[in-house]
């Protein structure tokens, strides 16, 4: 029975798997939070900010979107220490993932802002709303609602993207998997289990994002 699948030797390390899962969720949550913040700033800066801001933002978006996350991760992890920022691999991963998501979030939110009809803004102006209130209530919130599905799809991808930070020895789920492979020599079974865990995580996150969307955007249809 050499070839039979054996999950037992792996499942006794459930505590390790759970710790890895927790780390993965932490990384994803942290980077989604900061990435979205970068995205909001980037989109607002590009659409309403001064011209000298819109060019660098556009290049940031293009550069990040046209290079692999893995290279961005390596860049942050290996380069920042040279400039005096001593980062742990987990911090480096969180920084790289946030910068990565920030570019996508900027682009998605900008598309949302551009989808707001000019008439809405003119109507708000003629009602005498201040510039800040127009940007916030007439443009940003409806824009966020319009692109929320794309944004949450991007968040899901971000969760799956955290799997590659094991490449710089961060301690998330995939890195735990690699360690378990060394310990148990049951590589195939380990990755089957990890795939199931990610699958459940992704489905749960989809439900969560859908529910969250309904909750925060419920006041107008």
């Amino acid at each position: 029975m050499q070839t039979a699948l054996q999950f037992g030797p792996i499942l006794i390390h459930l505590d390790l798997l759970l710790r890895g899962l927790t780390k993965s969720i932490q990384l994803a949550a942290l980077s989604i939070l900061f990435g979205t913040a970068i995205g909001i700033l980037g989109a607002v800066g590009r659409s309403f900010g001064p011209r000298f801001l819109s060019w660098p933002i556009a290049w940031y978006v293009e550069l990040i979107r046209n290079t692999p996350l893995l290279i961005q991760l390596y860049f942050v992890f290996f380069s920042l220490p040279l400039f005096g920022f001593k980062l742990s691999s987990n911090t480096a991963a969180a920084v790289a993932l946030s910068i990565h998501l920030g570019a996508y979030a900027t682009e998605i939110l900008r598309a949302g802002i551009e989808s707001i009809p000019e008439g809405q803004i003119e109507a708000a102006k003629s009602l005498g709303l201040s510039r800040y209130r127009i940007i916030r209530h007439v443009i940003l919130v409806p824009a966020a609602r319009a692109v929320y599905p794309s944004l949450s799809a991007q968040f899901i991808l971000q969760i799956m993207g955290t799997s590659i930070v094991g490449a710089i020895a961060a301690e998330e789920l995939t890195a735990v998997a690699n360690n378990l492979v060394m310990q148990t020599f049951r590589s195939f079974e380990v990755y089957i289990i990890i795939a199931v865990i990610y699958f459940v995580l992704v489905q749960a996150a989809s439900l969560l994002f859908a529910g969250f969307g309904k909750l925060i955007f419920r006041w107008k249809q």
Partner: protein
Amino acid sequence: MSLRDFGPNELMFLLLATRWTILLALIAFAGGGLIGLLVAAIRVAPARPLRWLAAGYIQFFMGTPILIQLFMAYYGSSFLGYRPDPWVAAAVTFSLNGGAFFGEIFRGAIEAIPKGQWEAATALGFRFTRTLRLVIIPQAVRLMLPPTVGFMVQIVKTTSIASLIGLTELARAATQVNTVTFQPVMVFGTVSLIYFALCWPLSLYAGYLERRFATGMTRKVEAPLVMSAV
């Protein structure tokens, strides 16, 4: 401190490694495109069990990280008694994964074609495959083209993770050069530019196609996700 500096030789090494990134991307594109066509056809086929099968396939490949899929292919082959080969594992994984995404892109385009076209073809006595091949797909091509080119960018970037099973393409070459020169800004900056040079023209072309085909289109077909992943 470093063993050597980042010079013309190192640049050449990176540029030569780019060949394998391009080759891998082409394999993934061809394999993924073919599988995607099949998956999309099955997804709109009349037989319900087949549709579920295709849906499950898509669910798995879009719902788990591609890196895990790659590890499963790589280590799974040794489990089944084959000697693991990073090229085979990468080609198989990227094709199957691409097949799921292309399948969704193509299905979106196929479903955007009005029902009347199917009914007209049925009235003319066309069966399912002939309708698809002669009536639906020729009209759907212009809808699927922009997201398809957009996904090619995704494929090029995704090939970088093949470095994690030891395939020496651009990303792995970069870590090797970084290990001997320890000039990460230079090394990963250069590699970023190489990837950018590969991806940006495709991105621009996808954007151009989207704008060009956006006029007179009944329904916009979006790529299934605003893909980043890796």
